């Protein structure tokens, strides 16, 4: 009886993934209370995202944080908020069905870091090693 579910795969509902440990597209564990849990998951994520957004705007307008560290603080807040979005809105979780999504995300993050930090690194060195030569020096260098 319950064995029949093996032969024909049930088609799952769009968006009926619970805010718990389920990937996009997985069936909810329990039909009861699933609506409340789903809405609760989105509200939790929304509240956390609002908090982090307000923190970002507030921190940049005050001298609560040591000035030269502000850029790094904003970067940390942004990464934290991206994590909130990934977990609560995109449902990237530890579910076995989600392993492929997590692996792809890890590879994407690697490439993004290579592109951004690699570009900054290379271009900083280029700027240091190829300082523009002042015009009077340039004239002296001519034979």
């Amino acid at each position, binding site marked *: 009886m319950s064995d029949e579910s093996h032969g024909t795969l049930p088609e799952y509902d769009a968006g009926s993934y619970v805010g718990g440990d389920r990937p996009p597209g997985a069936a909810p564990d329990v039909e009861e209370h699933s609506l409340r849990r789903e809405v609760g998951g989105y509200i939790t994520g929304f509240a956390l995202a609002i908090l982090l957004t307000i923190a970002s*705007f507030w921190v940049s307008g005050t001298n609560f944080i040591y000035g030269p560290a502000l850029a790094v603080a904003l970067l940390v807040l942004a990464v934290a908020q991206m994590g909130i979005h990934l977990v609560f*809105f995109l449902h990237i979780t530890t579910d076995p069905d989600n392993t492929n999504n997590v692996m792809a995300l890890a590879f994407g993050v690697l490439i993004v870091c290579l592109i951004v930090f690699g570009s900054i690194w290379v271009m900083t060195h280029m700027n240091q090693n190829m300082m523009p030569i002042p015009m009077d020096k340039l004239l002296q260098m001519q034979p």
Partner: protein
Amino acid sequence: MSTQVLRAPPDPYHLGHHPAAPGAPPQATGHGAGGPAPKRIVVGYGFWIFLLSDVIIFASFFAAYSVLFKRTAGGPTAQQLFDLHNTAIQTAFLLTSTFTCGLASIAVGQRSQKWTQIALLCTGLLGAGFLALEVREFAGFVARGAGPSRSAFLSSFFTLVGCHGAHVTAGMLWLGTMMAQFYAKGFRTDIRHRFLCFTLFWHALDIIWVAIFSLVYLVGSLPPEFLP
């Protein structure tokens, strides 16, 4: 007995999804028992791969912007141009629209035509408000002589933020077609798969906006002596 005959032999190369036996715990990925993952998982995975490639495009624009940030060619700097009140309102619009988009996916799961259309309409209106503010901001920059051709900084700024705005515009068109399809054809399986991809797209756009408002607008508005 009959179910034993009818069931296909387990494919050891497919990712495990269903329990190996009735009542058994679900197999972890790679254990191979129970056949392929459901189509929705596969659709979501494929679209996730596309989104990550899109994120890499944005990463390239971010890299160009961060390299060219100080190359203002004597023109206006980020600190002189950016209006953080505008950015805050844009952020509120897009964040709320991603929330209503999540509510729409719950409404689709509940098969509620009314709430699906209401939540998607809110998403679209908030997205339109976001776009209107962005267009107004860009027009103001151009009017002040700070168009994309003014300096390398402004070229990279308009490319990065404009690319996000173009994605939001495309997302609005997609959102309109999804509303029409739900209205005309109901909650069909293939349409729900499309809608899953749309929600992933819209949420990913908000993630990119988080990076833009933090690293472009907020960091750009810091006093120059605070910047690395």
